[in-house]
């Protein structure tokens, strides 16, 4: 049997998928590290006072210029909405509606000005709010943030204001509540979730806006209107409804300005634009083109009036507002101050000087940030950083020189003004380049990489399909399918790597690996194509069977329609946010449909009915006994599917959703009676699991030997269950215990889980070390000599293969007689040989089950019991269907079984209380057995990952059972087989149920079958992943991309990785057992 090539091939296939995922992720999910540093007034960044400038008391970094400000955010206020063109004869519904802004800017050019406000992608509201308040470029994943909540951890404008004792009042979109919990002096939140609702938020704001403004109890007032955005999503911009909404905004602005005091700055901003369909999220011109309008009753601007409205990057608002309001600029800001707002109405020189000081502070702050950031993360290119550093120090030197000269009393002169202007230009250049550097690495999708990643994943799926076909035909040469492609890939990667080294560019690991993957893939397809054509050439003396061949092939494809159709529906469901949100119900629905259709198909083909017997009345048909069994199994499966829905977790998109009460730990239950009852239930489910596994093992005779693994199963399984039960008892009752016991409780809280960890690892090691659970009883006298035809040890592999069937046939015979007559007469030679592979897998799965179950809350043990039950039922159904269908090739696991298995894994992802969103991750799993926390990040990540992907792990490791189970279930069916055999009289030889040993009879086909199973599993997983990736790529403009599709992609990709690795482990385990069984046979020979 070829073991390593199979594993290597599967590992290579996994690698291909991984490289595709990596490439796509690098283009789609941009990452950034969040720093926790905060600016404060005492930071030595403030400019030394210029001559003639007294430092105002209480000023911080810069003297306060504006005591009060109103920030109106009109969601999705595109520049086109705010612009007013009186020349337009027939304005579209969204044009020329904000006439009041135009009127202000026209009548008071020194008080009001309209800008183009460039939003940074991703242009989703939450990311934009983060950008407008932190001055940074938030990506989808800001590493370092607390995943469990959306609250902004970085230094931000609101934090600075609150820290400096200002009152911030908020009204509008309740997204802000999640982002800035407990930050507001007063707040009026309105639900933002329902996109169809145009008016709740706006009307709510209008109700509170004017009274609050008049009340005066605020320093910064933020109002976030959502109507325009929702109108865009619902109707699109080109709709009369939008005209109404914009007119309403216009009226609102008009009356607001009447209520404003003379010292108040008014800012009206759009957080992003919208496309022609009213969507946003991406980086197209229309989406990033928002509007900003600035107004104050005291003059703000110089006399100079620009022709076209200036374009201002969105982050620029943060330093500007911070310095105007006299608070420090947030630490992570990379925006640039808007100089015009610092000119005031003084003389030209003093205006230039105050602008310069704003720039100076700004530049020092950005430099400080870049320095800290480059220490924390390496994603900014070092070359560019060095260049920036040079720019900065040059500007600083010039600044100091100029400062000294001004101190010495250089009078205001045109020359000074020119030098000041040049210096401002240098600071500006520095700030802009710094922003560009950050932008390049944080805020750009890489469409090419996304497409290439997609293509890689798609090609890998195709490869899995092709390779599994090849493996089925036993026409698989590892040399041409694995070795040559790998060599090709390595060669290409080496050339690329050398090229990179020679051109002294930074080596992009992901890129090189993807090239490796792509090249090896191409080589694989090339070789398999070549083989195919050669084979066709060899076979094709006569023209290949055209019509009949096609028809045959179509017939063969017919079996694929059902599983592939269901899989296709599931993939389509990935493209709709509603279906992704409702996936917890979609997966069981599809699984139930698959099972019912499968049984229905068997019925349709008459496999369930007994062959017609003459004495029956004509025109009627009866079910066989096995068919009834199959129907019962189907009913149990449906019941499992329905019951597993009890353990659901909620996500915010589903209204009126109550998370399952089973998710809460027992300790949170109030009633002692209920607590006790549930505790007993949990312990019972645990005991039931242990009992069922032991019962199964005993039934197949795998619980008799004295090998360490069997002893472990006998003694350590109940022990582990008891320990887990004790642990639950301690956790659920921790608060009741008093005084002295507290210490003991702490010890127990740490001790029990760690003991279970230890026990489980011991068990896993034992399973790897001595996986054979066969019991040999040396009572040869009664049975007769086992090995007759050959004397001594078999000399060659061929001899051994000839001998082996005889040995186990004897064993099976005696095992059968033992089973028939009961346990009194000990004439048995070997127990449990027929289920030796699955026994080990079952033991390992149970151990993993213990581990994973302990990481969940107590009552989830019921869900795990259900998981094992459902897996068992699925396997039984599979075995039943295989035996009823009759004609199926025993070494080929059909597609429906693999698909159902993957669906069950997905279903139990949800039924163990998970959802593909970050707030739903069970973080407390990291502290099971580690009450005091962790020193490293690896261990908690592993624990939380194991908790999250528990069902993926269990089903992937258990995947080889799909191949083994029909063989295991062979024994009970022997009766039927014999009945069939009587009909087929030409078969002379009596065939005994040799169960899994049938696999050993043909090691070649066994290894091919394992390879094929692994590839099929990877294919089904990979197709789902592909759909997910595709959805994320195509829908990157979708309203829900960062809330639904991107997290779904992330969870799916991680789930794929976990599944594929666990699949490799499961197959490795089967091969290890195979090794051990070979060794065991050899040992038997020599005895």
């Amino acid at each position, binding site marked *: 049997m070829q073991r390593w090539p199979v594993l290597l091939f599967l590992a290579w296939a996994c690698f291909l998928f991984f490289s595709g995922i990596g490439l796509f992720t690098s283009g789609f999910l941009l990452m950034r590290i969040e720093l926790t540093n905060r600016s404060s007034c005492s930071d030595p960044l403030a400019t030394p006072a210029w001559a003639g400038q007294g430092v105002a008391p209480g000023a911080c970094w810069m003297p306060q210029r504006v005591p009060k400000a109103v920030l109106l955010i009109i969601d999705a206020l595109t520049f086109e909405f705010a612009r007013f063109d009186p020349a337009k004869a027939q304005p579209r519904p969204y044009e020329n509606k904000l006439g009041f802004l135009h009127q202000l800017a026209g009548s008071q050019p020194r008080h009001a000005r309209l800008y183009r406000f460039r939003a940074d992608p991703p242009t989703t509201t939450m990311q934009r709010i983060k950008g407008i308040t932190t001055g940074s470029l938030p990506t989808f994943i800001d590493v370092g943030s607390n995943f469990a909540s959306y609250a902004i951890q970085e230094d931000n404008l609101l934090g600075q204001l609150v820290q400096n004792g200002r009152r911030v009042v908020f009204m509008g979109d309740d997204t802000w509540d999640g982002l800035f919990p407990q930050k507001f002096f007063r707040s009026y939140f309105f639900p933002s979730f329902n996109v169809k609702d145009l008016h709740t938020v706006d009307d709510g704001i209008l109700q509170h806006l004017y009274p609050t403004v008049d009340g005066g109890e605020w320093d910064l007032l933020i109002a976030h209107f959502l109507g325009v955005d929702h109108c865009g999503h619902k109707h699109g911009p080109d709709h009369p409804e939008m005209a109404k909404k914009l007119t309403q905004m216009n009226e609102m602005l008009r009356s607001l300005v009447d209520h404003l005091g003379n010292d108040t700055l008014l800012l009206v901003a759009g957080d992003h634009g919208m496309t022609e369909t009213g969507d946003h999220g991406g980086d197209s011109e229309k989406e990033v083109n928002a509007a900003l309008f600035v107004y104050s009753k005291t003059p703000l601007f110089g006399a100079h009036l620009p022709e076209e409205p200036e374009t201002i990057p969105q982050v620029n608002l943060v330093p500007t507002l911070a310095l105007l309001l006299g608070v420090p600029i947030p630490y992570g800001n990379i925006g640039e101050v808007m100089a015009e707002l610092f000119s005031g109405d003084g003389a030209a020189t003093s205006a230039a000087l105050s602008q310069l000081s704003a720039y100076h502070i700004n530049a020092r702050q950005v430099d400080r940030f870049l320095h800290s950031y480059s220490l924390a993360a390496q994603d900014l290119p070092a070359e560019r950083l060095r260049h920036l550093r040079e720019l900065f120090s040059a500007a600083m030197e010039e600044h100091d020189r100029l400062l000294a000269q001004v101190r010495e009393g250089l009078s205001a002169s045109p020359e000074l003004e020119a030098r000041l202007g040049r210096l401002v230009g240098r600071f500006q250049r520095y700030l802009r380049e710094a922003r560009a550097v950050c932008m390049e690495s944080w805020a750009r999708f890489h469409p090419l990489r996304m497409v290439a990643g997609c293509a890689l994943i798609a090609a890998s799926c195709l490869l899995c399909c092709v390779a599994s076909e090849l493996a089925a035909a036993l026409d698989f040469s590892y040399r041409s399918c694995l070795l040559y492609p790998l060599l090709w890939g390595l060669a290409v990667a080496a050339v690329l790597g050398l090229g990179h080294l020679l051109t002294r560019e930074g080596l992009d690991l992901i890129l090189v690996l993807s090239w490796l993957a792509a090249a090896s893939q191409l080589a694989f397809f090339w070789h398999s194509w070549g083989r195919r054509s050669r084979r066709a050439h060899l076979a094709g003396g006569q023209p290949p069977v055209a019509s009949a061949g096609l028809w045959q092939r179509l017939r063969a494809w017919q079996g694929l329609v059902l599983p592939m159709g269901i899989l296709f529906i599931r993939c389509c469901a990935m493209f709709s946010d*509603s279906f992704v949100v409702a996936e917890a119900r979609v997966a069981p629905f599809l699984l139930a449909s698959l099972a019912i259709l499968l049984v229905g198909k068997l019925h349709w083909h008459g496999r369930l009915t007994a062959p017609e017997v003459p004495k029956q009345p004509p025109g009627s*048909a009866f079910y066989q006994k096995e068919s009834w069994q199959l129907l019962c199994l189907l009913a149990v499966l*449906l019941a499992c599917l329905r019951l597993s829905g009890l353990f659901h977790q909620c996500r915010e998109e589903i209204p009126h959703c109550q998370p399952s009460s089973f998710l809460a730990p027992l300790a949170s239950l109030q009633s002692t009676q209920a607590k006790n009852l549930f505790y007993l239930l949990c312990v019972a489910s645990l005991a039931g699991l242990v009992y069922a596994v032991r019962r199964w093992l005993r039934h197949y005779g795998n619980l008799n030997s004295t090998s360490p693994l069997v002893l472990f199963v006998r003694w350590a399984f109940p022990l582990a269950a008891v320990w887990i039960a004790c642990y639950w008892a301690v956790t659920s009752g921790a608060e009741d215990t008093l005084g002295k016991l507290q210490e003991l409780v702490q010890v127990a809280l740490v001790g029990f889980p760690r003991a279970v960890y230890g026990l489980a690892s011991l068990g896993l090691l034992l399973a790897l070390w001595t996986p054979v659970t066969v019991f040999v009883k040396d009572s040869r006298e009664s049975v007769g000599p086992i090995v007759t035809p050959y004397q001594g040890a078999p000399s060659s592999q061929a001899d051994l293969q000839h001998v082996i069937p005889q040995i186990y046939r004897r064993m099976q015979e005696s095992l059968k007689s033992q089973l028939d007559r009961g346990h009194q007469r000990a004439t048995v030679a070997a127990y449990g040989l027929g289920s030796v592979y699955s026994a080990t897998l079952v033991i390992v799965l149970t151990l993993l089950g213990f581990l994973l179950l302990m990481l969940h809350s107590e009552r989830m043990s019921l869900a795990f019991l259900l998981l094992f039950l459902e897996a068992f039922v699925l396997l039984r159904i599979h075995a039943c269907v295989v035996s009823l269908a009759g004609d199926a090739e025993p070494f080929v696991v059909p597609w429906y079984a693999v698909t159902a298995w993957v669906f069950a894994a997905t279903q139990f992802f949800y039924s163990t209380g998970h959802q593909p969103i970050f707030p739903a991750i069970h973080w407390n799993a990291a502290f099971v057995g580690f009450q005091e926390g962790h020193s490293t990040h690896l261990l908690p990540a592993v624990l939380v990952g194991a908790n999250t992907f528990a069902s993926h792990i269990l089903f992937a490791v258990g995947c080889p059972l799909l191949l083994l189970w029909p063989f295991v279930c062979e024994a009970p069916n022997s009766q039927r087989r014999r009945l069939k055999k009587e009909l087929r009289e030409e078969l002379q030889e009596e065939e005994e149920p040799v169960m899994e040993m049938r696999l050993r009879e043909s090691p070649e086909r066994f290894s091919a079958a394992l390879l094929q199973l692994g590839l099929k599993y990877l294919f089904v997983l990979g197709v789902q992943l592909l759909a997910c990736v595709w959805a994320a790529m195509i829908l990157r403009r979708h309203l829900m991309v960062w809330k639904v599709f991107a997290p779904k992609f992330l969870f799916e990709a991680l789930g794929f990785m976990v599944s594929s690795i666990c699949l490799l482990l499961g197959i490795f385990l089967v091969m290890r057992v195979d090794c051990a069984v070979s060794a065991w046979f050899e040992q038997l020979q020599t005895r």
Partner: protein
Amino acid sequence: MKDTEIKRLLSAHIVSVLSIILTTIVPPLFLENFSVLGTHLIWLCICSICVTTVNIILYIILKPNPSSKRISFAHKVTKFLKCCVFFFISCILFHGIIVLYGAPLIESVLETFLFAVLLSTFTTLHCLCMLGPNIQAWIRVFSKNGAMSIWDNSLQITTMCSIVGAWLGAFPIPLDWDRPWQIWPISCSLGATFGYVAGLIIAPLWIYWNRKQLTYKSR
């Protein structure tokens, strides 16, 4: 012979389709505020009753599977009672399957049950009319080579179409379109009805086109 059979089948199916169309048109004339979506439960009842009566009347008129021997009155009564029991059991079974498929267990029990009744009238009732309360015959009919007359074929087609329609009707439920017909079980019962109607229309056509291939075992 065959062509006349097909014509009878076609006319029977057209009557059935018309009866279903009438259930949406006629009731508003008598009931205030009636609409298929708004007062869905009433429509479900009306539709079930209407389809039941039409089917029974058609069965009595057409006698698709005439049996040669005379049956006593007592026998007929027991057969009728048996049919009722079967129908009720099938409603319960459908209800159970629908709940297992994910329908709410406690809330909207009535809706689910009426939907189950509708499905039963589309499927079980047909079987009862055609084959009588004889499970073995049912099992036989729903297999590949089990059809013994064009009536059996049409039974296969309408039953499968109704169930597939109901199954497809479940797909729009999770979508966030906020349409009135997305409420449970409206989309499913509409799907089942459309499926049934489609089946009624398809069956004679399909049989007509395949009349050369269709050969039936004589009983």
